[in-house]
């Protein structure tokens, strides 16, 4: 059979006696929730001139491949044809070159996932990569959220899921919410407003980043659009670029001339900038212009040199006379000095003699400590304020103060930094979506977690990823009768699946470090919402885990009439202390009203009172839940309700995993390994969501091993009997 391998559009020369073998699979039956990509076994290629030209003679090790060379680090589109079309298409990874004498061989593998999403993502984080180009852009092209209580309201909350908005505001408790006995009973500082961002938005932005598309009914469903990523940072933060927009680092690259002070203000004008992304600092005027209402901190380290200048017609000293110049540094807001300062004293010796008007004496720089003038000051500013560094030089001692003027020169190397006091959002700041992901949350972990939550199956169909929950996935294909295609001259192995699998599967999210999460684990010895699935098989013992990197949503309220919120603090000697929580997800259930509930947002932006709240948690409704985004029902909940709370078991396990796992432990479920005669056309047309019938048993395809593109022969196929 004619096999053709194309790499980068070139028909590659193949060895006659080394076939290309392909493994097709989506999952490993022994590893529930694992996902695999179809791929070839290692392909060995001869060093024919044709092949060597494709790989640009990479085997010549002293050839500079940065010039018109082959870059093995970059994916090259590749596909294999088996005489009847493409039997695998994806990308080629060159893994090795072997030289024995003059005999050179190339080795590599083709992976079926042409876009190679996971490989492209690597270990990149959603945000905060050392190389910012690896970040997922969550903001561009979206409507900006403004950090203000006015944007937290019922209409926005209820319309969020159906809308095209990527994110919405909700409230949490970082340990700073307070209660009182009169209405409104519950106070939420406006700084506890947080963003919830749709999973779908993040998912789509990742796919967009890697130029990849998908087809999925589930990922476009209301349920998935209700899944949100919660900002659980201690504070709602500026993004790095927002912070940089407010940050200016400036310095003096030359000494200034001596500027007359004698107690008057001398503005320090820094003439060079190390960093000033948004030109907040003016190197001509020496002013920093604030563009938001927040505390700003100015950190300055001035190198100063004082001088005295005679302002009297004549002065006569009979002996050497020491005159001290005091130089103070200030921060000024709108030309008004802030009250605190720091100063240095410089002694200038005037030798005995007669001096006339205008004569000067400089400080001799003998004491560096008297030259450096460090100073830091935090100032409350509003938009439009100007900040500056100001020096004052005065004659401090010497007796003849009135005849000398004090002057000061700002020396090269003097620096100043103007920045926000904290990384925290201020009222009316744009609340960027890029600031939401937790630190070091990997892109691939986000994708894998979503796959694991909903037991999603992926299949690359050459154009799109087909992505659906397992039960839906197997409704996409057609049913094929392979009864007559099974080679009866070779062994057919039938193994009860329950025997090769697991005794227990623990399905759980990551434990968070907040007080209530730890309390739950301490009391229950498992993570909130954990599901333990048992296999009744008496011959297996292995315990396996399906674990998320996300922490589970965990709703807390001390009284029934308090809003049911996510709490992200721990207790330090009984005092609440905000923590940066782990990545936490939740279900956006909309605005929940209860007649007795009264709460208010306090602080900047005016007090706003509410009779409801945005519920983002583990259930579709905190009082009468019918659906849970936990794997299993929690053993206890940490919030109060007015009525009796019935915990639903309509959770991730029962909806998305139960059929698959029960299929595995069923007494009727078998793993059938046999050899099936598949023609090239059949293998090319086969989709791994197709189901097959063999000897009256309905099966799904677990794996096709070592499909040989070079010769037509029965191929080993692993089937799972499909009970449910």
């Amino acid at each position: 059979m004619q096999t053709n391998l194309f790499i980068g559009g070139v028909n590659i020369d193949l060895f006659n006696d080394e076939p290309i073998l392909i493994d097709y699979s989506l999952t490993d039956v022994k590893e529930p929730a694992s996902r695999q990509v179809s791929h070839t076994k290692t392909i060995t290629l001869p060093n024919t001139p044709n092949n060597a030209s494709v790989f640009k003679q990479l085997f010549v090790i002293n050839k500079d491949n940065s010039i018109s060379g082959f870059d093995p680090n970059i994916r090259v589109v590749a596909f294999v044809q088996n005489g009847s079309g493409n039997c695998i298409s994806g990308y080629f990874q060159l893994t090795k070159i072997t030289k024995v004498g003059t005999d050179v061989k190339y080795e590599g593998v083709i992976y079926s996932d042409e876009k190679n999403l996971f490989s492209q993502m690597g270990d990149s984080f959603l945000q905060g990569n050392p190389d910012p180009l690896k970040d997922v852009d969550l903001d561009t092209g979206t409507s900006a959220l403004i950090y203000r209580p006015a944007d937290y309201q019922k209409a926005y909350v209820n319309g969020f899921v159906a809308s095209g908005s990527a994110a919405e505001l909700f409230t949490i408790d970082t340990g700073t919410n307070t209660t009182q006995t009169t209405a409104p009973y519950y106070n939420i500082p406006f700084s506890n407003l947080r963003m919830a961002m749709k999973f779908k938005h993040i998912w789509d932005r990742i796919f967009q980043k890697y130029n990849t598309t998908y087809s999925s009914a589930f990922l476009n469903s209301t349920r998935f659009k209700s899944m949100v990523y919660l900002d659980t940072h201690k504070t709602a933060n500026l993004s790095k670029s927002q912070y940089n927009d407010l940050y200016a680092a400036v310095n003096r690259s030359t000494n200034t001339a001596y500027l007359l002070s004698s107690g008057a203000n001398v503005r320090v004008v820094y003439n060079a900038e190390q960093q000033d992304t948004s030109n907040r600092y003016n190197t001509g005027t020496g002013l920093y212009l604030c563009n938001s209402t927040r505390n700003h901190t100015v950190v300055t380290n001035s190198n100063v040199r004082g001088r005295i200048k005679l302002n009297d017609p004549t002065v006569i000293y009979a002996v050497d006379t020491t005159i001290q110049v005091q130089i103070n540094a200030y921060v000024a807001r709108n030309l008004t000095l802030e009250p605190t300062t720091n100063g240095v004293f410089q002694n200038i010796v005037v030798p005995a003699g007669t001096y006339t008007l205008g004569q000067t004496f400089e400080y001799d720089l003998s004491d560096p400590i008297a030259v450096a003038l460090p100073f830091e000051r935090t100032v409350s500013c509003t938009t439009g304020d100007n900040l500056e560094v100001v020096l004052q030089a005065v004659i401090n001692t010497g007796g003849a103060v009135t005849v000398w003027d004090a002057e000061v020169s700002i020396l090269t190397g003097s620096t100043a930094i103007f920045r926000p006091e904290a990384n925290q959002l201020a009222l009316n700041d744009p609340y960027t979506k890029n600031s939401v992901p937790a630190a070091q949350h990997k892109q691939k972990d986000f994708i894998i977690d979503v796959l694991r939550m909903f037991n999603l199956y992926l299949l690359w169909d050459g154009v799109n990823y087909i992505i659906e929950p397992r039960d839906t996935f197997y409704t996409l294909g057609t049913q094929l009768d392979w009864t007559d295609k099974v080679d009866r001259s070779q062994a057919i192995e039938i193994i009860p699946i329950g025997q090769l699998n697991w005794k227990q599967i623990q399905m759980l999210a990551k434990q968070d470090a907040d007080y209530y999460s730890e309390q739950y684990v301490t009391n229950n010895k498992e993570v909130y919402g954990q599901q333990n699935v048992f296999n009744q098989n008496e011959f297996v013992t292995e315990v396996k885990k399906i674990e998320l990197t996300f922490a589970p949503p965990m709703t807390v309220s001390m009284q029934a009439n308090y809003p049911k919120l996510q709490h992200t603090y721990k207790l330090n000697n009984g005092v609440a202390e905000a923590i940066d929580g782990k990545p936490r997800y939740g279900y956006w259930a909309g605005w929940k009203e209860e007649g007795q509930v009264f709460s208010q947002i306090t602080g900047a932006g005016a007090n706003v009172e509410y009779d409801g709240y945005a519920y983002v948690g583990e259930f579709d409704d905190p009082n009468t839940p019918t659906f849970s985004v936990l794997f299993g029902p929690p053993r206890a909940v940490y919030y109060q309700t007015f009525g009796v709370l019935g915990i639903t078991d309509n959770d991730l396990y029962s909806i998305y995993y139960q059929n698959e796992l029960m299929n595995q432990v069923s007494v009727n479920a078998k793993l059938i390994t046999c050899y099936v005669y598949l023609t090239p056309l059949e293998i090319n047309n086969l989709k791994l969501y197709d189901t097959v019938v063999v000897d009256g048993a309905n099966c799904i395809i677990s794996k096709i091993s070592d499909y040989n593109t070079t010769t037509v022969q029965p191929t080993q196929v692993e089937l799972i009997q499909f009970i449910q």
Partner: protein
Amino acid sequence: MAITIVEQPLTHTPLYNDAVVIMGSPLANSPKFMYCLDVTLVLEGMSNQYLGRLKTPAVVDPNTLFNRGFFNVKELLKSSNYFQTKSNFIFSDKSHPIILTPGEEYASSPSGVATYYASSAIINTVVFNGALRLNEYIDFVPTDLINTGTIAASSGIGQYLMSSYTDSKEILRSTLNELTFLCNGGTNTRALVTYYNGNALISTQTVALTTANRTDVTVNGSYNSLTVPPTATKYTIALERVSNGNDLSPTYTYNLVDACSMYPTLNVYFQNKWGAYDSFIFNLKSTKNDSINRKTYQKQDRYLQTYNAYDPAIRVYDSEIKTKHTLNTDWITQEQLNWLSELVESNNVQFSYDSDYGGGSPASFEIRIIKKINSSWGFDADEKVSASMSGLFLVVDFEATIDFPSAEDFYDEYLYQVLSFDTNFSTYFNFAATYTSTYISIVFTAKENGTAYNLSSFNLYGSEQITQHNNVSGVNDTATLIPVTVDNTSFEFKTRDNDKLFQLTLNVTETSVYNRQNQ
């Protein structure tokens, strides 16, 4: 900076042998110093192809203790696809000019960035698709193949056949006979073919060659591409200068033989050590042996009485048929035997059956001669017919004649006599006449199949009693080339002691695989 070239390839160098460049530089101790060598292949008459830059640090030459850069461009060149003869790649050829550009890169300080500087000293060489044994390579000088003296491009250049066997050689009419030479890209070269019957000269033919911008040229000396007189028993081929007819190569002789063996006669073709193609006749017993490998799978046994259909449980899903041949030469000389060792070593071997040669057709044309003005048969005045054909000039002069009583008399007594004995048309064409009431039709049919007998021009001079009709082009005979691999462990020599001749037996396997219908 001044790079010194210590060693460089010869003006012409075989591809599969070392092509070494050694260079030195006074800056070799500079920070981050690397010797560089850019390799560029010139597509003759077209663009240059940059193959890459080799780099090496300076190493101490143990012979001189100088810091040298050692390069061998063999692997880079040999693995480029520009030297695959008989491949589908349009730019592959038997030779190409190569430009080697030395260079160096270094930094001004250990922490600095290295900068590349090219040398103005360029190395030019022509690399041909040869593979020589070490002793042959040591002995090789480019003048073995080509006159490397500086000769104006318009004046041609002396050349030698790229073959180890240059004695007279037997060929069949079915033999593809290629003669490949290195050349210098001039435009003043053509091939001269001289035909003999025994030692008696019959005629000559010139073959135009495209040599402009080329470093090699191949003359198709096959029977079906030349205009070989039917009586020829041998022909010679040599290159000559177009402008003055001076020889530019030795003369190579080919004896035409018939496949008169009781066994199937074969032409075997192989790429020789110089990179060109040679041919040889195997005319003794040849055997053919098919090995068949069938693969089956077994369906479940399920008989459906309703349909009473035979549904075999065991089915052949694949079969593979490999064909092996054993080929034998006639008695050959020791010199031929030595040459044919290149056949045994060659990785590009093909053969064709002489009996398979065919499928062509002869060229033909017709002339019609009408009556005289007085309505009698004959010519009123002198008539002349001339034609050009593959570099040959054919001509017949008819003179004014008496009146003949009939067309048949005119043809038998005059036309046939002139055409048969006084012209060279009859050398290459058979002719026969038919008659109508108004004209005599003489149809000329080439004595051999092929395009070599197509008329490239036809001219008539005289009183216009003659017209030409139905010019039909000939089609070349061809034979299917079967690629094979030689099993070099099973060839053997047989010696006939009394006259020191040998016989070569060759076991080969067809590289194509044959599949039959599956069940």
